[in-house]
């Protein structure tokens, strides 16, 4: 008898105590966090420079252990950043393919794949292979036309497929590792980094508020390369060749339009001239068409002759003495710039300056060099500038396979990272354009250490790098061979600097300049240390919650829960009297249990409390009393049937159990579905809902029951708030 009573006390007080003990670290941790924040503020304001040290001495250890065992708050409550990233498989494929083999067919496949994969959740590579079979194969291409598998003989399409799949899988795992290191080095407390599906990475970064910096940190590929600069006549000639190609193709397009118009003309004529004399009209029309064609031929001839003329003159002019070889002699002065622009679509986007042997500008009045065609280009070194607007157009043109093929495949045109000049109104910026050898002399894989600092001379931010043994030897070799030449330091296809090698550099140190700010230098230091990504990643989802909103949400959540709880307590006490109070106590223990289960002490890794999660707990308050209401209503019913209180209680609990089990199972199922299919905050809701259902069953049937039994045992009849008339 006594032991029964003892165990009943245990079932009531046990969960209560356990809840308080388990939740204590959570309370301590958030309390100390506030204190730490205050200490930090004092230290920053200079009021108390030792504040942080004092805090560390007093609470450091407690704070850290408490933090490990507290309930994690979701980003919506704590503030922070959520980022979902995806490996850019299209870029990876393009980079894996041998550069010189990429043609229009390959581009078409990539484009089709991109469009299709963006719209579906199918595996990117599967879509690529399907599109390849559909588009490229009928044109006689196979995967081995574009891809090579190094170190494997008798390459087949199957082997290429396996390799590409390995590449993609390897890229995501490597990206995960690199990003983890970057976040680690950047110093985010309690980050969560995980892989989602086969090619996504999800990051939760509590407390992170500077999204711009974070985005840069995460999406930088950080591919560091040292490339030889080749700003010589070769590339300038190629640019003029592109001009010529573009001019020719636009002329062709024009002439097609002309013929089309002529044809249309003739058809219209043929149509409109009714039945009267069709044959005559048709004859007329074709005659007209003939005339047009003749005119075109004429024009073409004229074009040709001017060309021949100018070459004759040009071949004698070795330097850029352009005036003497003006192919636009017959063109009106006012139209000349327009004609020149039409014929030089690419080079007019740029400003090209030749340099003399000493590296000085050769330029009349600081004007850029203007030539008519390739053969006029003098064999010198050059400097190329491009405005940001011009660069956009330039990039667009150069991304066309037919155009980029004109540039020798071992050369590459890259933009400088930092603008060379910013126009006075700040609207346009000018960048330098560098031509480099596509094959890097050295890559960042040899970098062992990086350190951001500032140049003592210019006070500009700079990142110093150290290389390992192998890298140092290579670097010494490269610099030794290229004295007085320029080597571009390229990061993610942007040239940070292109210093002239003064002498052989031994010891493997080098430096990057050209950053905008010390912050950028610091980010660079981090990404260089963490290493480069094998494949570029892009951010597909980004959420940020500022700290003030989070605090506001917590405050509102607490107020709403408080009021909701109060209303429920009031109702239950009024309606069910003593039993109602029992139910209220059970609900309180219930909430305590839900929160306890959310801690890492109970669930491995701990659950995350989100704002919808708080709503879930509030809702559980409402639902938990449902279980009690069911039991109590049943007890009242049995009482009204004339049963004794004892029998009614037994019957009430027994009969209500089935209904409660069934209804809660269905709720639990929806919670499960939500948890599996939802993300972030919604998962938080599903979690509290599911835990709430379990604790509700426990508190309604075990805790409430124990309380009622204890009251019964003490000899006092429990009041279920039933009307007096029907009681007993």
């Amino acid at each position, binding site marked *: 008898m006594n032991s029964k009573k003892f165990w009943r006390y245990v079932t009531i007080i046990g969960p209560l105590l356990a809840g308080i003990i388990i939740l204590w670290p959570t309370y301590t941790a958030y309390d100390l966090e506030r204190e730490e924040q205050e200490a930090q503020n004092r230290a920053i304001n200079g009021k108390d420079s030792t504040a942080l040290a004092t805090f560390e001495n007093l609470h450091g250890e407690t704070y850290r252990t408490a933090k490990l065992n507290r309930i994690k708050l979701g980003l919506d409550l704590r503030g922070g950043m959520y980022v979902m990233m995806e490996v850019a498989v299209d870029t990876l494929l393009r980079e894996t393919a041998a550069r010189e083999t990429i043609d229009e067919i390959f581009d078409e496949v990539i484009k089709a794949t991109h469009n299709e994969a963006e*719209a579906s*959740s199918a595996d990117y590579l599967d879509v690529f292979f399907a599109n390849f079979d559909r588009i490229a194969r009928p044109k006689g291409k196979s995967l081995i036309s574009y891809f090579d598998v190094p170190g494997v003989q008798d390459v087949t399409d199957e082997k290429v497929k396996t390799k590409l799949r390995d590449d993609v899988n390897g890229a995501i795992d490597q990206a995960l590792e690199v990003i983890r290191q970057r976040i680690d080095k950047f110093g985010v407390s309690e980050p969560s980094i995980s892989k989602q599906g086969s090619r996504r990475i999800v990051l939760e970064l509590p407390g992170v508020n500077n*999204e*711009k910096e974070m*985005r840069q940190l995460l999406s930088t590929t950080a591919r560091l390369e040292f490339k030889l600069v080749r700003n010589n006549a070769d590339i300038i000639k190629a640019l003029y060749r592109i001009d010529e190609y573009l001019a020719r193709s636009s002329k062709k397009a024009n002439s097609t339009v002309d013929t089309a118009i002529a044809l249309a003309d003739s058809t219209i004529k043929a149509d409109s001239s009714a039945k009267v004399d069709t044959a005559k009209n048709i004859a007329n029309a074709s005659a007209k068409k003939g005339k047009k064609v003749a005119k075109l031929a004429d024009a073409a001839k004229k074009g040709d002759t001017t060309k021949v003329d100018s070459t004759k003159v040009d071949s004698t002019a070795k330097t850029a003495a352009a005036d003497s070889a003006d192919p636009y002699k017959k063109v009106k002065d006012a139209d000349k710039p327009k004609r020149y622009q039409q014929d030089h679509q690419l080079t007019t986007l740029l400003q090209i300056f030749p340099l003399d042997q000493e590296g000085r500008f050769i330029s009349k009045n600081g004007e850029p060099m203007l030539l008519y065609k390739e053969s006029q280009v003098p064999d010198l070194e050059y400097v190329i500038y491009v405005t940001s607007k011009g660069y956009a157009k330039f990039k667009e043109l150069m991304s066309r396979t037919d155009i980029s093929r004109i540039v020798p495949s071992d050369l590459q045109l890259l933009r400088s990272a930092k603008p060379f000049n910013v126009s006075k109104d700040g609207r346009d910026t000018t960048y330098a354009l560098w031509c480099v050898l596509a094959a890097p002399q050295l890559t960042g894989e040899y970098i062992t250490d990086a350190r951001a600092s500032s140049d003592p001379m210019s006070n500009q931010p700079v990142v110093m790098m150290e290389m390992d043994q192998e890298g140092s030897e290579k670097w010494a070799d490269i610099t030794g061979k290229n004295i007085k030449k320029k080597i571009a330091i390229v990061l993610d296809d942007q040239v940070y600097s292109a210093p002239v090698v003064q002498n052989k550099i031994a010891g493997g140190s080098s430096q990057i300049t050209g950053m905008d700010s010390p912050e950028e230098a610091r980010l660079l230091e981090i990404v260089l240390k963490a290493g480069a990504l094998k494949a570029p990643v892009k*951010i*597909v*989802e*980004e959420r*940020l*919650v*500022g700290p*003030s*909103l989070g605090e*506001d*949400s917590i405050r*509102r959540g607490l*107020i*709403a829960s408080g*009021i*909701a709880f109060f*209303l*429920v307590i009031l109702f239950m006490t009024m*309606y069910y*009297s003593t039993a109602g109070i029992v139910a209220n106590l059970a609900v309180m223990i219930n909430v305590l249990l839900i929160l306890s289960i959310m801690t890492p002490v109970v669930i491995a890794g701990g659950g995350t409390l989100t*704002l*919808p999660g708080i*709503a879930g707990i*509030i*809702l559980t*308050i*409402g*639902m938990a*009393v*449902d279980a009690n*209401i*069911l039991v109590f209503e049943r007890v*009242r019913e049995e009482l009204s049937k004339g049963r004794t209180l004892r029998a009614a209680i037994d019957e009430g609990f027994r009969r209500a159990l*089935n*209904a409660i089990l*069934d*209804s*809660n*199972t*269905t*709720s639990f*199922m929806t919670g499960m*579905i*939500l948890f599996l*299919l*939802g*993300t*972030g*905050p*919604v998962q938080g809701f*599903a979690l509290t*809902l599911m835990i709430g259902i379990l604790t509700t069953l426990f508190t309604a049937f075990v805790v409430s029951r124990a309380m009622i039994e204890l009251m019964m045992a003490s000899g006092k009849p429990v009041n279920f*708030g039933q*009307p007096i008339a*029907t009681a007993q």
Partner: protein
Amino acid sequence: MQFFSKTNIDFLSKRTMFVWFSIVLNIIGIVAPFVLGLRFGIDFSGGSEIAIQLSKTENVSLIREAIDKANLDGAEIKSFGAANQYLIRIPATSYTKDPSQTVVDAIQKAFPSETVVMLKKDSIGPKVGEELRNKALIAVVLAIFAIGIYIAFRFEFLYGLGAAVALLHDVLVTLALVTIFSKLGIINLEINQSMIAAFLTVVGFSVHDTVIIFDRIRENREHHKGMNLISLMNLSINETLSRSVNTVMTVVLVLLTLVLLGGEVLQGFAFTMLVGIVTGTYSSIYIASAFVIWFMDKVKHSHLEEDFQKKKLKPAKV
């Protein structure tokens, strides 16, 4: 205290009227989203949403002007919680680079003397949006299906079907009301992830009532052998009425608190649940039970007014 004592209301005699009423609401639920248009949150449509706070309350049109100057087409500006907080939403098609900084800069430029604070930001790629949308739809359908099967297994097939029909009814009626309220602009009701969570909770919770009534029918069938189905159902509904009303009352109390005090983020969520749960209680009486009766009558051609004893009834599987 007692609201109902020994009620004996003939709920089911007026079932035809209520069923028609529900059918009308359901049709609205199906048609309204197409006619009035559902407002998808950026979770599902993709795009960017930036909540900012200014030091003073400014006219929304001035903010719109600032955003327009930044060349972000199709931006929507709404208030967000407090008067000096604004929510700016930009469709995914209007930008190539994350627009949050542009927005903050543009507003700072327009109100140079004030401090602009970014409260929160969500940027979702169109593909992710579509994935989330599909997942949400799967979740709702799966939930209704799973619950139907569970009830069919715990009770009888017909009852499971009745429960599933009632759930579908609740979802559609809630959808109708949400669409209409959203159109009226009384409350901010965008279909987003937490809204789907609300719908699913409605599904889970509204089946509670159905289960309680079905459970009582199952029990009463044993006790009152010989009673016809309609009387049996009426009896069971009357017996559980007190519980249904009290439970709904406590949940409504809680949800009303959330609607009024939960803040911008929880308001729509709580409102949807409020509508859904009240609907759920109603549908347990008039849809789930009425469907079972209708099915027995029209499909199985059993005589409802007849005594039960004559028929072989499957004993409850408990």
